């Protein structure tokens, strides 16, 4: 009994120290976000003179103004569509490939894998013009599918690498058991590999959706119709060459940040639960 109390006290003390450290880091993470939210309630005049986080006369109208002036309604739907389709594509295509690289045998496997890996490492800053020429030739310029394919391509290498790392850790016994049960390769991929890699897939969904959601430069290159543009285009309205409408920009950014935090909230649960549920399925 005595030992139990000692253990409890020790644990309480440890947790306390850890909490303090975590809280310090948390404050630095939360502060800019609060500043952004607070600034979105100020005016252009008070934003850099009023130093309080939450202004005395909050301008709730800023959100409405930002939404209408930035034309967020249409952009929002576009961005949702691009994010959902591109992330879906990345997860399916990358997990198929990663599964093959990790579990299947075929000639040229290593070369192919290192090719994907190499793509992640060699940035192509000059590829803007060739890409535009290519998209025009393929008649993919100013189309949604062209943009989505580019976004899938952008997320592929990283996702394949990440998933391969996790598939490699998958116990071979589970795979064998599934095979004895009469599972085909695609069945193993779906029933064994994917559930086991759930945390990794959650990570890919989190990262890819953030990337697609925040992408803007490629969109300006590929799209010319305003009706196809993603959400970030709406924010550009507030960032002129000479004038930045700070409070509206902050309001717009607050609006655009919320969905991506929601995605994270939904996905991070899977990072926590992780494995145990998955092992039994196979």
């Amino acid at each position, binding site marked *: 009994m005595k030992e139990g109390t000692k253990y409890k006290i020790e644990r309480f003390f440890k947790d306390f120290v850890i909490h303090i450290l975590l809280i310090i880091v948390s404050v630095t993470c939360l502060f800019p976000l609060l500043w*952004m939210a607070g600034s979105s309630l100020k005016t252009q005049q008070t934003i850099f003179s009023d130093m309080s986080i939450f202004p005395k006369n909050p301008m709730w109208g800023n959100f409405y103004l930002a939404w209408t002036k930035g034309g967020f309604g249409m952009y929002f739907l576009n961005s949702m569509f691009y994010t959902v389709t591109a992330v879906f594509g990345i997860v399916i295509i990358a997990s198929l490939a990663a599964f093959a690289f990790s579990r299947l045998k075929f000639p040229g496997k290593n070369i192919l894998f290192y090719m994907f890996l190499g793509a992640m490492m060699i940035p192509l800053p000059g590829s803007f013009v060739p890409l535009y020429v290519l998209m025009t030739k393929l008649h993919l310029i100013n189309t949604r599918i062209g943009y989505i394919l580019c976004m899938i391509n952008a997320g592929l290498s990283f996702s394949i690498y990440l998933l391969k790392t996790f598939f490699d850790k998958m116990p071979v016994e589970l795979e064998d058991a599934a095979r004895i049960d009469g599972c085909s390769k695609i069945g193993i991929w779906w029933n064994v590999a994917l559930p086991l890699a759930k945390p990794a897939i959650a990570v890919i969904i989190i990262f890819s959706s953030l990337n697609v959601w925040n992408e803007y430069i490629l969109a300006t290159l590929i799209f010319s119709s305003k009706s196809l543009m993603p959400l970030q285009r709406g924010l550009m309205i507030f960032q002129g060459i000479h004038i930045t409408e700070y409070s509206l920009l902050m309001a717009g950014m607050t609006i655009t940040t919320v969905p991506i935090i929601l995605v994270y909230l939904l996905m*991070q649960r899977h990072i926590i639960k992780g*494995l145990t549920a998955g092992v039994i399925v196979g």
Partner: protein
Amino acid sequence: MRTKTILQNYLFVLPAFLIFSIFYIYPFYKVFTLALCQWDGIARFDFAKNFIGLRNFIELFQDKIWWSAMLQAGYITLIALTFQNALALGLALACDRDMKGGNIYRVIFYLPPVLSEVVAGLVWKWIYDGNYGLLNYWLQNIGLSNLVTDWLSNPKTALICVAIIHCWKGFGWGFIIFLAGLQTIPRQLYEPAKVDGASSWQMFKSVTLPLMVPVFILVSILTVLGTMQVFVLILSMTGGGPGYHTEVPVTRILASMVGSSRFGYACSQGIMFGAVLLAVSFVQIKLSKYMKQA
């Protein structure tokens, strides 16, 4: 193996390969040819007329500013590899414990990556500001007013300040990957150690660490790639200044491409940069294989 099986296996990689070959290999080939040309990015491109051989690369080898930019990016990367990843791992381990309220931290630590660069830039500039900055204010209050300086325009502090912001903005990524990695370690593996009365440090060393090696490699490679290619943050914080003190490869590439319209030179910079990153990653992968065996 039967041919059918091999073909079936190829089918798994096919979608990825198709997209990749269309959207990566063609631009890659083009960039490679452009690197051998002198072209302003505007005039009609004519390979025969614009071809200058390896002159871009020869010039690049002698470009001192380029190599110092590379070193500076390397410096930021070194800080990120150690400081940022240690922070990410520490926080991931702390959050992996069954703790009251542990959940909320998981959410908070991912906020910096989500945050717009614009907001991050504005807030950090305000912290670092020489006159009205929070950092100087705190330093004065705790009696360290001799440390007060203009953090971002002092050549001695600018680079480290930028590196700190980068680490702050980036540790969330590593944190999540570490957390996901920790979840794949079955809890049962800790049971025998617990029964033996092992301390948490011993458990970490004997159970967690060996199983996490692949994840460490993953995170370290991603950190190197991500940090070496940093530029948005640099442009918004210092614009590469003062002088060339915070220039990194990508800002130099942009300067050649947009600033001075030397498209061919920019492409040769891109290829050189890619070659360096490939070499570094190759060394990392080799090292990790060695570590796994050891």
